[in-house]
């Protein structure tokens, strides 16, 4: 395997020149309302073409190994590219794209076999395969290891049955990374396996879920005798929890290069605009609320910088530290959304039909709780911080040592005894 060496400044020059010659500049960097992203087939097709262009020029998977279609450079090179490309129109696969290139691709790199990676990774990096997660189930969210989708071995293939939910972008994804139970007679963490499932597979039904804001970004799925070949297993059979751990770390933002976010230096512009519209800029209660929101934004931004510095300063990986950022977001986003509604009153609650700008406060209010629930609830983050950062003992566990089949048989009649 040949390795390319190029210093960061030189790389930046190269990137700058290529971007200017090949991509379109973005028209506006105005912040958008936090709508759940859903993409039309046309938008997806455009993004695929754009991703292919990046791939052909060597700017897709910059820090991924060359043998799997990447460029084999460092995370710092990846960051340079993000900084430089921020002003350009880039591929946008919605939320499914975000998980494809971070949580999914990274956990595959860490756990999938070389032949699997040679088969899928170049297609992922070139935009040919968009992936989504078949992860949560109607009866298992925070307790992910408690999933009940069943995969049964049948010669050199597996038959999968069950139901999945909260799969972002599954209706336009090409593949799903699906967690299923492959052994019911061992404790819950030890009988799990990951599979690559084509979204076109026979027996798979995908239905968009209409969400609280009327949009459909998430889906639910029914797997009815879906057949997957053995070489589409990701990681080892029954060792799926190790893959899940890697995935959760990326899902919660650790190790992710992340978009370039600037220090917030303008007093909550959205809230100030709303207060002006409501003619309440002289109201001291409103002024206090606006300041409070901006101060929280500023503190959250610097918390992010602090977490990054803390990870840099440590020679050991500290995945749990990322939980601070997630908990901060889950704590302050709903508060901020409420502040807007309190400041605006009718200005935030009512709008003329189709007035996107005016409706964003209500939409944000409904979606404000997204980060306190999705990708690990606030409570799960608190457990992570409490146990893995602060070193507090765990709650007694009723289910982690006995066979999963026994756990589900007895759960409804739990007598309050542990062990």
């Amino acid at each position: 395997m040949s390795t390319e060496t190029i210093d960061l400044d030189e790389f930046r020059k190269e990137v700058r020149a290529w971007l200017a010659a090949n991509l379109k500049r973005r028209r506006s960097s105005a912040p958008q309302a936090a709508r759940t992203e859903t993409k039309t087939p046309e938008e997806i097709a455009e993004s695929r073409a754009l991703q292919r262009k990046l791939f052909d020029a060597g700017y897709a998977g910059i820090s991924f190994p060359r043998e799997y279609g990447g460029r084999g450079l460092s995370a710092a090179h990846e960051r340079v590219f993000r900084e430089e490309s921020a002003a350009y129109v880039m591929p946008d696969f919605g939320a499914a794209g975000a998980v494809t290139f971070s949580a999914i691709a990274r956990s595959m790199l860490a756990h999938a076999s070389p032949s699997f990676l040679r088969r899928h990774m170049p297609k992922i990096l070139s935009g040919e395969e968009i992936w989504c997660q078949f992860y949560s189930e109607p009866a298992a969210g925070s307790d992910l290891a408690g999933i009940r989708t069943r995969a049964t071995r049948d010669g050199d293939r597996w038959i999968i049955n069950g139901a999945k939910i909260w799969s972002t972008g599954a209706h336009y994804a090409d593949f799903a990374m699906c967690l299923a139970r492959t052994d019911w007679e061992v404790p819950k963490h030890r009988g799990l396996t990951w599979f690559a499932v084509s979204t076109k597979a026979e027996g798979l039904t995908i239905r968009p879920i209409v969400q609280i804001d009327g949009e459909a970004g998430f889906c639910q799925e029914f797997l009815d005798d879906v057949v997957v070949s053995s070489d589409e297993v990701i990681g080892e059979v029954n060792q799926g929890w190790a893959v899940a751990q890697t995935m959760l770390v990326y899902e919660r933002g650790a190790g992710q290069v992340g978009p370039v976010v600037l220090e917030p230096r303008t007093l909550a512009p959205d809230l100030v605009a709303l207060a002006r519209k409501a003619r309440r800029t002289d109201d001291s209660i409103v002024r206090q609320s606006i300041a409070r929101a901006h101060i929280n934004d500023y503190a959250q931004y610097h918390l992010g910088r602090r977490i990054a510095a803390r990870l840099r300063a440590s020679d050991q990986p500290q995945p749990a530290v990322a939980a601070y950022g997630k908990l901060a977001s889950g704590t302050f986003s709903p508060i901020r959304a409420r502040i807007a509604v309190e400041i605006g009153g009718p200005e935030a609650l009512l709008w003329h039909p189709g007035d996107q700008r005016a409706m964003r406060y209500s939409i944000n209010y409904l979606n404000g709780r997204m980060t306190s629930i999705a990708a690990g609830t606030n409570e799960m983050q608190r457990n992570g911080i409490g146990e893995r950062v602060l070193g507090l003992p765990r709650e007694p566990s009723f289910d982690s040592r006995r066979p999963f089949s026994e756990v589900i048989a007895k759960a409804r009649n739990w007598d309050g005894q542990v062990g």
Partner: protein
Amino acid sequence: MDFDATDDQKVLLEASARFIQQAYPLGRVRERAYRDVACAADYRRQAGELGWFSMLVPEDLGGGNVSGNGVLDAALIGYKRGAMLQPAPFAGTNIVAYALSAAGSQEQREKVLPALMSGQASASWAISPPAGHTMESSVTAEFKGGAYRLSGCKTFVQDVDEFCWLLVAAATDDGVSQFLVPPGTPAVTVAALDSLDISRQFAEVRFEGAQLPPTALVGTAGKASGLLARQCAIAAVLTVAESVGAMDHEFEMTLQYAKDRIAFGRPIGSFQAIKHLLADMSLSLEMSKAIAVAAAKSLGTDDGYGLEAASMAKAFVGEAGVELAQNCFQIFGGIGFTWEHDQHLYLRRLTTDAALFGDPAWHRERLCQLSNL
């Protein structure tokens, strides 16, 4: 507090922590030893030798910092001080030294400033809580017969005695002016107050027609408002740093207690009711550290957002500190109600810190005004 601390900063902090441990551990805080004039003088002199009062003064005036950002260096010292609830008007003395180096007369810089930095003399900033939403002074100075006559009262003056230099802002005809008041000035009375906080001593300073010559002015008459705004921001950041130190120490005490205290057959920290509270407190502490360092870096490097950052830090940490102290109290339970336990020392200090140099609501309003809202 800062993961990016330089080696020089670490040396300064280690020396400061050693000094604190030897000179004024928590036992001395409880004895309120600093009220003894000899003890205070000794403490101040040793602190001066460590450079505690020199960080905001340029080298050509005999001062000097260790990282190029004196506000950050002083804040890091403040963090160590806060952890052990140290006495002495650290923010106040640094503000006086800063004001003299920025705007003082040659005489003030040559005669008073070196004595402040070395700790031979003491100085405090005579302030009241900012009134309403302005920075107006509650003291007036009338120019008559070649001298200024100061009248009014400052009610929130820290660790001051009759040997102490005082910096005071007063409303004059032409705006706001600052004066350096020598110890022993007639018609200036210092009345010691009892307070919630027992780690420091607060006083009310009355100016009852005190006469000061124009040479007592710090800077040009009527033109002090710019410098005052900066003094207020620096004092806010240093107080924030002390609060964060106190929060950090109290949180560690509480976390250890949650691991040691057994109830219902297991450590209480294993219960999610306690664990989740501690996780939230830990987040609040991390954010407080982050915003304190950010404000010190911003203000100390004049990056154009320092005044706003200082007010944001004071507002955020003021609330977070009180909240954290209250939660620690709850986790300690009954033992926290005793005089013997240290938690109340922290509760008292953090609650007072929140009010010093502008409370959270005042700083939120100040942020709005600085942002032209």
